[in-house]
């Protein structure tokens, strides 16, 4: 029982970070119906951003996150104008391939510069004991920061002018344009926020696990699963999707070999796509 408690707690902590990663993907999907296949490499860049700032400049990893976030936002805006803007109204294949091309470029350059050898951010805050469970403090901080960032995103989307613009464009782009919303700028901004969230999630993950330049791919696939669980286009649903996935990853290994986790995850993913493509939490219908 204690064992199960530890696994669930552990899974929940991770789930918040997973949710944050998926939020970037699902926000971009929700606003412009684009599946961002460069999501994984951007998560990797977030990891390396924190790694480089921490290792070579000795910056505190959580302080480094601020720079990573700014970098993620700007990178996303650049990617939007270079690769996405031209094909935003073309069939899905075009945006899928355009973002995949960006993924190839980032991965190719990243592998050339950093090689594929594993790195880690050697940073520890000790651990706390909660009943029978011992949890590294970095996990707790990562979970808390994920919650704070999500809350920030929620407030931004609800309360600010540009947040309302983003929701308007997601709802109906042509109507928003008629109301005077500068849609191209808002789309670029949304893409930037999406990649910023991905880079932030990568930065947080780098404080928890060792990683390589290719590690983002795993989290990208997880983000797909989470995005579909929570409803693609529903950023807050992504957080709950992340929690579900995190808890599943915690619980499943207690009664069957851990290697079965991805099998169950992807079967669940395909089933939800088939039965309830709008997600468990019922986002807007496509």
């Amino acid at each position, binding site marked *: 029982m204690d064992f199960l408690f530890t696994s669930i707690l552990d899974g929940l902590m991770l789930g918040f970070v997973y949710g944050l990663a998926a939020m970037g993907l699902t926000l971009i*999907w929700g606003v412009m*119906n684009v*599946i961002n296949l460069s999501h994984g490499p951007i998560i990797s860049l977030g990891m390396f951003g924190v790694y480089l700032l921490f290792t070579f400049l000795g910056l505190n990893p959580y302080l480094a996150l601020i720079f990573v976030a700014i970098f993620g936002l700007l990178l996303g805006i650049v990617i939007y104008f*270079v*690769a996405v803007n*031209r*094909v935003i109204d*073309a*069939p*899905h*294949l*075009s945006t*899928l*391939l*355009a973002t*995949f*091309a*960006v*993924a*190839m*470029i*980032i*991965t*190719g*350059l990243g*592998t*050339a510069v950093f090689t594929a050898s594993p790195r880690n951010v050697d940073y520890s805050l000790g651990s706390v004991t909660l009943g029978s469970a011992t949890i590294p403090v970095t996990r707790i901080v990562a979970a808390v920061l994920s919650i704070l960032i999500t809350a920030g995103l929620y407030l931004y989307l609800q309360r600010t002018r540009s947040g309302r613009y983003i929701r308007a464009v997601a709802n109906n782009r042509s109507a928003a344009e008629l109301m005077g919303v500068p849609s191209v700028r808002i789309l670029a901004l949304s893409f930037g926020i999406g990649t910023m969230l991905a880079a932030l999630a990568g930065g947080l993950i780098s404080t928890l696990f060792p990683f390589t330049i290719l590690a983002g791919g795993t989290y990208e*696939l997880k983000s*797909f*699963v989470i995005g*579909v669980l929570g409803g693609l286009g529903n950023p807050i649903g992504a957080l709950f999707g992340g929690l579900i996935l995190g808890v599943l990853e915690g619980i499943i290994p207690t009664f069957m*070999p851990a*290697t*079965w986790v*991805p*099998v169950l*995850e*992807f*079967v669940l*993913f*395909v089933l939800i*796509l*088939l039965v309830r*493509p709008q997600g468990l939490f019922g986002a807007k219908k*496509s």
Partner: protein
Amino acid sequence: MNSPQNSPVVGAAPKVSWREALSQNAGAYVGLILPLLIIALLTIWPTVTGKDITRESIFTIMLSIALASSLNILLGYTGYVSFGHVVFFGLGGYVGFYLMAVQGWSLWLAMPMGGLASGLLAFLLGKAILRLRGGYFALATIGVNEAMRAFINNFEPFGGPVGMTLNFQVYRDYGGAAQALRMTFYILAALTFAVILVSYLVRTSKFGLGLLAIREDEDAAEVMGVVAPSAKTWAYVLSAIFPGILGVLFFFKNGSIEPVPAFRLNFSIEMIVMVMLGGQGTVLGPILGSIGYQSLRGYLLTSPLFKNIQLAVAGALLLVIVLFVPAGVVGWLRKRFPVLRRVLQ
């Protein structure tokens, strides 16, 4: 398409229409001859030069042609983006490999079984996931591929994460390893011929017209009497059978099979790139796209300047194609030079 069917309709103006019908027919044949000629040349080339290294590089090109042309039936004609198409290559390969390595079957029996396994998977999946449209379908195919890889990774009869290897003795039945290698090349050439033929027949058939209609507007196609669910399923099955057979052949030649190389998602995307590069929805497009892509890749991998960043260069090229020439080489030529439309099918 056929003049006997057309003649009563065009009877009012016999001279012009008859000539038009004839040239259309001739054009249609040219559309098939050109692709087959390319394959024939590729087959003969290593036989003439007699170099094993040429044969190996042409093996890679021809495998890409066959896979890309299979995918084109679904992607190009029907307009459904299968991002995880490699699942059929991997599954077929695994089933065939299991039969050869564990059950001691011959390659000749294992290949159709691999094709059958993939076709069956496509049939069962097709009923379910082809209901999804656009991005949701693409995501589902990724999910299916990842689920299959994770499953095979845990499936002990197929060797789990370690995979399986062929006993070297096996090649003796085919006249030794060198002879077996040569044989796989000619089997591949025959299979590629078959894929091109199927691709052409589908494109010029009524079934194919139904698929093109689905690609343009699925709802309108259904109103016009295309039974979309069954047409899509059969297109999916057709596009899955050959990758299954090819998987068996490839891993037979390879001598071993493992989950990661068998279900590599990037390989699927390479197939899509090759179809796009040449021109989706045409018979010739995937052939030109495969030759172009593989030659370029070979060049980048060996050139001292681009060796380390070959992935990035390939990505940049892909981006340029997607943004500026979305119809591919063949599509661009057809648009630019209308005269060529009859020749370039």
